[in-house]
């Protein structure tokens, strides 16, 4: 019986130290080597991603016709955001339903690129509908001019007396 007790005692010790025994055989150097290899790959893949973003911009959204709409939240905004619908010159161009993480990222100062498209130069009519819980809905419109360069419009959500404002960038 004493043997059994000793065996169990040792097992008890192993039970509270589950990972040490299993990890003991594995080389930490090998883990480190793999980690560094992954970091190198990340660096290369990120460089390609950047290159492709630039390629996409020049090919699909050249600066002469590019229009981009961004959404941000004013500091201290308590607006409960569910979704946004956007119409450009009377045409529905995009809508977005927000996740909790997206709203939180905007609350902390992140700016969402909601839409990128192409437009002729000239006067443009933008209409934004913001939706929130319990049937909240706010519609706002904005005219902006598209010149020779890209047109950037920031839609600022504040939730106050003017819940939606626009800034031409």
């Amino acid at each position: 019986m004493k043997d059994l007790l000793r065996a169990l005692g040792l097992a008890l010790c192993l039970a509270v130290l589950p990972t040490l025994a299993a990890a003991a055989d594995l080389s930490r150097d090998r883990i480190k080597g793999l980690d560094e290899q992954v970091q190198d790959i990340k660096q290369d893949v990120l460089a390609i991603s950047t290159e492709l973003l630039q390629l996409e911009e020049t090919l699909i959204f050249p600066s002469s016709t590019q229009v981009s709409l961004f959404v941000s939240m004013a500091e201290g905004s308590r607006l409960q955001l569910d979704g946004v619908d956007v119409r450009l010159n009377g045409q529905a161009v995009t809508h977005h339903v927000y996740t909790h993480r997206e709203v939180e990222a905007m609350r902390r100062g992140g700016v969402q690129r909601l839409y990128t498209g192409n437009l002729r130069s000239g006067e443009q009519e933008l209409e934004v509908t913001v939706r929130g819980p319990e049937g909240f809905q706010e519609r706002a419109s904005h005219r902006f001019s598209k010149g020779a360069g890209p047109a950037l419009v920031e839609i600022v959500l504040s939730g106050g007396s003017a819940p939606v404002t626009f800034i031409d960038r």
Partner: protein
Amino acid sequence: MLSRSLPSRLLWCLLWCLAAGAVAPVQAAETRLPGSERDLFLGEAFYYAGQERFFDAISRLDAELLQYHRVDERDRDPLHIHAGLAHFSVGDFELSYRMHNKAGRAIAAVLEGNVRQSVRNEAAYRLARIYYEKGDHENALLTIERIDGALPERVRDDERLLRAQIYIVNDRHADAVEVLRRLERVPGYEGFAGYNMGVALIQQGDERRGLAQLDRAGQIRVRGHDPAALAIRDKANLVLGFHLLQGERPEEAAQYLNRVRLEGPFSNRALLGSGWSGVAQARFDRTLVPWSILYQRNPTDKAVQESLLGVPYAYANLDMHGRAALLYGEALEAFDRELDRLHASIQSIRDGHFFRAMVREEIRLDSNWLVRLRELPESPETWYLMELMASNDFQTLLKNYLDLEDMRQRQTAWLTDLDAYEDVIARRRDYYAPLLPGIDARFRVLDSMIRLRMEQRQSLDDRLQRLLVAPDPKMLMTADERLLLLQLDRIEDEYRSDQSATGEEVRRRVARLRGRALWDIETAYPQRLTDAFDNLRELDQHVQRLDEIYAGYVRTRQAATQSYQGYDERIRNARARIRQDQDRVAQAMKGLEHMLERMAIAELEARRDRLEQYRVRARFAMAESYDRAVKAQQQALIGEGAP
């Protein structure tokens, strides 16, 4: 007896192991840029970073920085206001994306980031944390000691806790204790600080104060239902209990082990330890209380498996050999079932089910994915691997594996995108290429006409400018006046030699008419000059409009060409690089799979070996118990038959 079974080296390992887990979560940073001139693209990078989508954050910000460095007038780019922050942030995001190569931007961000000291300090804190979690204690220490001055308030206490833990793993226990003292009374950190201080003191050799400290940490009042604080309190009691068991003070040990909550993550180990304290005191009736609770729990847990042997062992020591034999039989059946499941789990991992489950998107979207993973019917092995999966080594490998899987999916999508781009380019070429020669020919004709008119306009301008300096009324004569003067010259020539009275009269009238014409030319000159300038200005407006149309045409023409020319090589290169990296990603994933598989299988095999040992011991113990039960029965019968 227990002191022999629990070598002190292992106990310290336990302390270290538990201390390593006692880190409070990091709060997300506020990334709002001040002022209305903030750069939208930098804000966009923060948007992705705020969702922990660091790959997107880095590549977007990199693209923006490349563009910023290409422009000549950087002051006109809104990014110039935050250029320092942008450069720092891209390194900071790399840090969060676990790219902490020595020569990388993440390190540069920490060492020389052009941002506020507090922001840089926060990055150093996070880098130190990565080193610490990856087991690189030396670099963790070097990095944490780079922090100079203030830190943002929301990470100040976390930094102190991490600093103390780094001191502990670098054997600077006195420094750790000093840091932890400042944290001991900070709400929410009492347990973490108290626990780590106890560990540091014990490792420093001050066992008396260390145990007292752990005792205090094991009794902290927890506000509300804070699972982390409750867990650290349990952990303190567990470590204290095992330390006392090792020191052959089982009665005191039981007191601390019994403080551990019955429903917490350390409950099974505490119940097991509590039972062992009864064994050590030869109080088997007491042993049965915690072990009987444990016996009813999930048999995949190691502590529960041990109780399957422990309970009959206790009954045997209470001379209840029949019951002991039956329970050993039940234990054997349970071990057989578990061994079957372990064999199946090892096979399942070898068949790749484990990895397929781990990379499922819906699992990863859940912040509690590790727990969700074990609920998947196709991955029963995760039941056995929870502890292994929570270890830093496994987490490092797993996160890398998931990052590689994410990149693999992106690469596949990019190759499809490139095919689509080529299709777009071919369509544009088919549309524009036949049209452009005709348009260019017409444009060349118009262009030469425009150039001629522009030269004429310039000539007019030059002449008017000269008139301002040297007035010349004849320059602004009307066509009629010019014809009149020519006509008068002709008449004058005709009558120049006529000496008759008629000739005299004609010359006189010509002179009068010339005088009249010149008078008009002279007197109208100022008004005519003004009108000429007004007309030139009006002409300039038309010229400006012409310029705009011209520039618009040139831009459109250029855009038409650029819409399909100059991409072939870029696309070809990008495709080649993606394919090359696809191979590297696949190779690295295989390496990680192999490593993770080895770790998982090693863990399962260790469990299997232990269970097989348990099974052998259970068989012997069962036979012994049967013998004793039979002997006892025979003796009872003899006793009954005795006169």
